């Protein structure tokens, strides 16, 4: 679901390679003390070394490009061959429903205390019994304040744009967020399962396609920097990459609200090194280690100690880094859709196939 949010400069090449890999190759047994699968570039590049220095344990890190890809692998192997996996929260929910996740050993992960109370009480797993949040944020509109009149503070600014913006807008391509924009604009929930409401959102999105430049969830911020696009639907963290290159770029969450996405760390029950996995979770939750993600990938982390250790200049340059946990949890948490996922897939196919 979260698509290639992390693989900033990567894209189809990686997707192709990983698609090929997922369609056939089984995961071999590993000699490492711990096997971790994460999005490329989503944790410190030297984390294997620093973790080994701290614990003496050898880590093998593998990458996945999308949630769907790692889900396919985990379902095929029943989780064997992996210890810690990074997935977005709805997928953690599914893995848990499938009985593939180990319970988090609270005694072995004392750094859980660093989490914001809000982050330890998220509705899919209150009490962090099977998933530990790693990063969180929301989705909104990222725009060139020098090219857009006023603040585009409604989803309608993107879906029924002013003439000047026609052909200069991109939307996210991935089903939950594409549908999310339509659902929120029509007053529905981002987790809507009522077919009539999903249909209404779909109709609105098909209409909006006429004024759209492209669907894009990998290069939208560079289109904004180049001026090819003036307004894009964006994840907050990725809008920051645009802001880093052009100070006229701003991020706003529309008045109709938005989603709260959470990327989590889970431990596979069938992995061979669950005890080591708990040590790794504890290591990541250490304030200094967790702060790496906020400083380097410009995502908010749900770690109070880590966020408080950040240089205040960061939140000045990237205002969305300053969003409080209370604000974030005010948005609607993305949940597993269950069978309604099929309705979303079909609606997105219809939107993409519409003329």
């Amino acid at each position, binding site marked *: 679901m979260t698509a290639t949010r992390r693989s900033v400069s990567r894209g189809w090449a990686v997707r192709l390679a990983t698609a090929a890999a997922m369609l056939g190759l089984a995961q071999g047994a590993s000699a490492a003390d711990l096997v971790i699968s994460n999005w490329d570039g989503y944790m410190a590049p030297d984390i294997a070394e620093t973790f080994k220095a701290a614990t003496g344990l050898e880590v093998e890190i593998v990458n996945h490009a999308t949630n*769907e890809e790692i889900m396919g692998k985990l*379902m095929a192997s029943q989780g064997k061959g992996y210890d810690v996996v990074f997935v977005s929260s709805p997928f953690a929910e599914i893995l848990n429903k499938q009985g593939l996740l180990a319970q988090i050993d609270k005694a072995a992960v004392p750094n859980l205390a660093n989490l914001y109370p809000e982050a330890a009480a998220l509705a899919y797993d209150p009490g962090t019994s099977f998933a530990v949040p790693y990063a969180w944020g929301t989705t909104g509109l990222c725009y060139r304040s020098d090219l857009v009149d006023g603040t585009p503070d409604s989803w309608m600014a993107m879906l029924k744009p002013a003439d000047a913006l026609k052909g200069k807008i991109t939307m996210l391509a991935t089903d939950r967020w594409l549908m999310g924009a339509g659902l929120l604009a029509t007053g529905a929930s981002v987790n809507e399962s009522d077919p009539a409401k999903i249909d209404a959102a779909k109709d609105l999105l098909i209409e909006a396609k006429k004024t759209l430049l492209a669907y894009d969830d990998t290069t939208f911020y560079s289109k904004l920097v180049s001026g090819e696009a003036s307004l894009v639907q964006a994840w907050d963290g990725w809008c920051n990459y645009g802001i880093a290159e052009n100070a006229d770029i701003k991020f706003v969450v529309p008045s109709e609200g938005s989603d709260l996405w959470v990327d989590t760390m889970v431990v596979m029950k069938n992995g061979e090194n669950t005890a080591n996995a708990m040590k790794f979770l504890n290591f990541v939750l250490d304030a200094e280690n967790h702060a790496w993600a906020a400083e380097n990938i410009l995502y908010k982390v749900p770690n109070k100690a880590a966020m408080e250790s950040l240089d205040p200049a960061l939140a000045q340059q990237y205002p969305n880094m300053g969003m409080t946990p209370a604000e974030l949890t005010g948005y609607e948490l993305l949940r597993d859709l269950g069978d309604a996922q099929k309705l979303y897939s*079909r609606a997105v196919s219809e939107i993409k*196939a519409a003329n």
Partner: protein
Amino acid sequence: MVAPCLLILGYAFFERGTWGGVVYTFTLENFERVFDPLYARIFLNSARIAATVTLLAILIAYPAAYAISRAPKSRQAILLFFAVLPFWSNYLIRTYAWIVLLNREGLVNSVLRWGGYEGEPLSMLYSEGAVIVGLVYNYLPFVILAIYSSLSRLDMSLVEASRDLGAGPVRTFLRVTLPLTLPGVAAGGVFVFVLSIGNFVTPALLGGGRFQMIGNLVYDQFLTANDWPFGAALGMILIAIMIVLLTLQARATNRAAGTTREAIR
């Protein structure tokens, strides 16, 4: 080669596992779904785009191949080399190059502005036209090679005979050269059509995701919708189209070979 195809064929008859994978309950539902108006429309649309690409590629490749085959023998190899040269770079890089050329802030618009054009920059990228241009560009060398190989095998004595018998250049071309090189045209054409209809990278990159082709649909089934059986069924239909076209092409080649024999007799 055969095993993955059989595996895919097998998947197509089972039900989707909710989270990837396959539930081994026999069903024909996946094939019924292919004929659902939504997916049928995507199929027809892909076929239309692929047919346009094929036609354009042949129209461009034939004169090019003809020119190469008429060049002095010593220069033919180097001309062919240049026709195939782009193929030594990665498909993705070539496709990204078109993004650089076509986008609103891109090379084409810069050149236009430099040339005195003062209107709004042209929106060429993320359109069906861009997808077609990208596909034609990428598969053109295959067609040139296929037609060239037909042309270079053409028995020139037949062309001379036609001239001697009083046919003008146009008539000779239409009655002798073209029919005898049709197998090459068909081979190149089938190649482009089959590759274009299943392509998903070009529509995604140059179409900006706004143009769904059957390849994108298959990709989505496997990688986002977790519906492997339906993706497999769609894939099998693509393979079936390919087999039908290749059979037709083989027949055309045989028939042409027959015509040549008759002509020689």
